[in-house]
């Protein structure tokens, strides 16, 4: 077997797997419609405002409900306490307010 045959076979297999993963994602998206509807109903019923991604700080648990000061509540130059603070930025609208 030539090297080019091996290479083309590898690329073809990888492309087929990529297409299959896209197909799988599409099928899963259809299957998750009910789950999204259930989550949405809970949000509407309980007036929830944010995803429960991080629970360690209020500005990462509810970034939409925190104020500009919350990340610097101890001191204006205080170093970030929580690791999740580096993963969840403040909402863009709040950051825009900081622009001159």
């Amino acid at each position, binding site marked *: 077997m030539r090297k080019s045959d091996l290479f083309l076979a590898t690329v073809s297999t990888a492309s087929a797997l990529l297409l299959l993963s896209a197909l799988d994602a599409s099928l899963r998206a259809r299957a998750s419609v009910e789950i999204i509807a*259930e989550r949405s109903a*809970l*949000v509407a019923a309980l007036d929830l*405002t*944010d995803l429960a991604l991080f629970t360690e700080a209020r500005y990462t648990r509810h970034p*939409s409900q925190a104020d500009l*000061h919350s990340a610097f509540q101890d001191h204006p130059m205080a170093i970030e306490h929580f690791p999740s603070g580096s993963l969840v930025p403040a909402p863009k609208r709040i950051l825009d307010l900081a622009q001159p």
Partner: protein
Amino acid sequence: MEWLRRQRYLIDYSLSALARRPGKHLGLLLVYTLIVFLLASVMLFTQSLRREAALVLAESPEIILQRQVAGRHDLMPSAYLEKIGTIRGVAAKYGRLWGYFYDPAVRANYTLLVPPESSTQHQTPAPGEIAIGAGIARTRGLAVGDYLSLRSARGEPFSFRVASILSQSTELVSSDLMLLSADDFRRFFDYPEDRVTDIVLQVRNPREVRKVAGEGDASPCRTPARSCARRSCAPTTPSSAGARGSSSCCWGRCSPSPSSPPTAPRA
């Protein structure tokens, strides 16, 4: 056919050239693969969270009014509900009761929430009972009928019976939730009777949200306040992404009372 044959020769030649230093080129291939894998994973995961947030949080409250004193959140007097009066376009207004509790046993924060009275899907738990998110149940090893003992704001032990566990499929928004009755909430946190955490304004017409939010800020509450309008925000964080999470804030234009100086948030 000739073109294809030429390409195969070129591939043969390239692979033979690469095979002269197999260690170096295999290492490069591994590094590039890892970089693409990492970047693609992060981008796909972030994008999926944004999309999920946009879909799920579309039903969150249109406007939430919060009170600020000296740059910090403060409890909202229930009397403001009447003082705000009837703002045109507002279908309903009510106070919310919610807060955080740090559980030293698992070193995690819970979000304690009183379901709104209008909620038909989730009835308010009976006094002494709670409904918890699947995350709390898993972490504390709780099942329906078990008791969860927490220390209240006054330092007294408080026992709640787990009446139900929220569906595991809703964990993305309810993992750390603990639903309880308003009386239990006030007793547990020693919460003043005449205060709520914030005020929700429901607006029927999405195009009126920004105008109503402005009127809410300018209402005669006589305190620095801010309103968070859901439908007018831009996608930013995973949690408030998709232009639907409540993150747009029209900072307070309420006239400050003489006793509380204006504390408009700054950068």
